[in-house]
């Protein structure tokens, strides 16, 4: 495969997937049921991506657990995105070095 053509195909398909709903759903969908459904979608998608993905993200499950627990604690304390990320990364790094 020609690399540049492959990149073009990738970029086009990615963009198409993203833009199609923006073109199709121009009006506000008036059904309260659908509005509610779409309101929950981001939270569910994120959750589905976190678990079990987070446990496979680092080299070992143990360091991932350490980072995960840290993120849960900091997240529950409603710390900022940066605080949660950096805090968990530091803990994970320490765990990686120790284990």
């Amino acid at each position, binding site marked *: *495969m020609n*690399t*540049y053509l*492959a*990149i073009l*195909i*990738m*970029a086009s*398909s*990615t963009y198409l*997937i*993203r*833009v199609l*709903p*923006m*073109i199709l*759903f*121009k009006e506000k969908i008036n059904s*309260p*049921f*659908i*509005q*509610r*459904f*779409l*309101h929950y*979608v*981001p*939270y*569910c*998608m*994120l*959750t*589905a991506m976190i*678990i079990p*993905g987070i446990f496979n*993200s*680092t080299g070992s499950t143990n*360091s*991932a657990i350490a980072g*995960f627990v*840290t*993120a*849960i604690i900091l*997240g*529950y304390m*409603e710390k*900022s*995105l*940066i*605080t*949660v*990320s950096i*805090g968990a*990364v*530091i803990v*994970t*790094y320490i765990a*990686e*070095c120790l284990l």
Partner: protein
Amino acid sequence: MTQTHTIETIESTEYTTANYKNGLIAGIPIGLGYLFVSFTFGMTAILAGLTPYEALLMSASNCTSAGQLAGVNLLVGQSNYLELLVTVSIINSRYFLMSTSLSQKLHPSMTFLKRLIISFGMTDEVFAVNSVEVKDVTFSFFMGVFTFPFIGWSLGTLSGALVDNLMNEPMQHAASIAMYCMFIALVLPPSKHHKDIRFVVVLTLIFRVLFATLPFLNQISEGYTIILCGIFASLIGSFRYQEEKLT
């Protein structure tokens, strides 16, 4: 008499004002996370035989880690263009749902052209922040959120492609958890305060466990599993909480 737009509604004090600056600030952690993740992608791309420029081009034009990784693997594996198209589309199919979801949350000032533009930046994290941080998504806020992620994703890829083994292994591993932590930071506070969100989140977790353990379901690929669990949980939540006020 013309009515001026109020970008922020009065009841929902937990939302930020939707302007470019606030978007920029909200996008900083995403940008940092992307720096890390795209760095490893850059290294992967080089290992796969791409040039640094090709890696940069791929990242700047796609802005998606999962799809790019799949694409690189297919490039190396001597696949064909059709398989590439189909695979990347399926892996990215969750963006369809995200765009649909966000299309309902757009500020009236969002013209058709602006929709076309922001669609380019509809990444997982950018979508998530736009969904959660403001009440109505304006063009300036979205572009603000997308700014650092785009720079981070591109720059990180290029850096990873140009530099060999700058980070030692523990550092790489620790850095790769950053994105997930961002997700956690986005999901936890609303779950804490709103029982309907808490419900759908827990339900999603239960579904993921089911999909991981039950015989037929555990054969389903990751991309589809995410979509199915997300959709089912959202659906059930919508049935159950018909009376609950939307935040």
